[in-house]
């Protein structure tokens, strides 16, 4: 069944590497364009990387690297990891749309959201049913925001000239 554990051979079919490239691209876009993403339908979402980064091991023989707390994206270790060509495997993200703000750790390879915190419940919400309605909408909105950002990345990634243009810019940023 498709929900069952994926073996080594099947790992390729899920394109786990693409999720890790997506995370690294989010960081690149956040630092180079300010973290404001214009999504289809006129939606504008703000994004920032927060206090947790996990860099994937470049190969089976090398180690993963975790940076926690503070502003790990500004550390020398993070820059060194980027200069070494490492992709992000997981990162804690802050997402904001209008007055709503979410935080979540995104696992790139599976696109699973871990440790999510939804926006605070509205003050006017009183009953459990109303609270459920609002939270359900916020869960769905978070999923759709991440999907929309991933769509934006994928449209760039699938361009025939991706390596010459966007990836070349990103490589310069990573080396910087």
């Amino acid at each position, binding site marked *: 069944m498709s*929900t069952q554990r994926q073996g080594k051979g099947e790992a390729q079919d899920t394109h*786990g*590497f693409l999720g890790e*490239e997506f995370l690294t691209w989010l960081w690149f876009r956040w630092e180079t364009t300010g973290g404001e993403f214009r999504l289809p339908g006129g939606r504008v979402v703000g994004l920032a990387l927060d206090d947790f980064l996990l860099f994937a091991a470049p190969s089976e023989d090398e180690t993963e690297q975790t940076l926690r707390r503070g502003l790990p994206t500004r550390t020398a270790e993070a820059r060194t990891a980027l200069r070494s060509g490492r992709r992000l495997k997981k990162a804690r993200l802050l997402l904001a749309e209008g007055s709503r703000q979410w935080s979540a750790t995104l*696992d790139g390879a599976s696109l699973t959201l871990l*440790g999510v915190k939804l926006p605070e419940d509205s003050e006017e919400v009183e009953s459990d049913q109303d609270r459920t309605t609002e*939270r359900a909408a916020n869960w769905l909105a978070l*999923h759709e925001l991440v999907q929309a950002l991933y769509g934006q990345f994928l449209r760039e990634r*699938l361009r025939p000239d991706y390596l010459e243009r966007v*990836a070349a810019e990103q490589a310069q940023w990573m080396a910087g």
Partner: protein
Amino acid sequence: MAAAIRKSGGIVAFHWQGKLQDPATQGFAEALAQRRFRTIENAASEEISVGGVTKADPTGDTFALEDLDGGAGTWLRVRLDKKTLPKKWLQIHRDAAEKSRGKKLSARERRELKDDLTEKLLPRVLPAVNLVDALLFFDRRLILLFATSRSVVEAFGKLFFETFSLPLERQNPRLAGLQLKLGAEAERSLDRLEPVRWPRGEDGDGRPRSVPKPVRATALDDEEDGDEAVGDDADRRRNKTADGDDTPPWQEQDA
């Protein structure tokens, strides 16, 4: 028992293909009732029971449509009970037996002791209870499961298949790309994509390149456990221990 849906934790997204009954219809609730939770409270052997319940009725006896109301989504709840002989009790009895004999028990004697204790103690042991929620968004063919541990994810997928005869596909970067409906050509390109190798330090000419896909274990292997949506904190604590292993529940049951 009824409360609001959770506001934090981990989620796994699923999609399904094929025709699912409209959750607003009685037929949907009847399908859930067919795979309702069945108690193992009085079971005399180690067992696991997985079945559907609702936010208002953790026994699985009733499936009122209003209890499935999850705002924009349909609120599904799965109950996973697991009855096992507490390992510490087994150890206490083994230590006592070895002390009174003055020597270690043989493998056969240890097995006999375990069988004996299982028969005596299990009817008195209450199962660990785990309640896991999910939101089903019918129009989007999307389910958000509020759990990320492998055993719960697999148990949920199996129960959904048994209930609706539809396999669930777990979200991953490739599937998420296909969900975006980027067109046939883009989908073909997606399938052909290979990882980018970014320049490493001063090596090479500083240009990124495509490389063949690496064959390595998926990151699903090391997902965080213990992120389940459970009914209360006490259950959560119990289930962290109960779910400590990685064996899917139905495999344990079949063993």
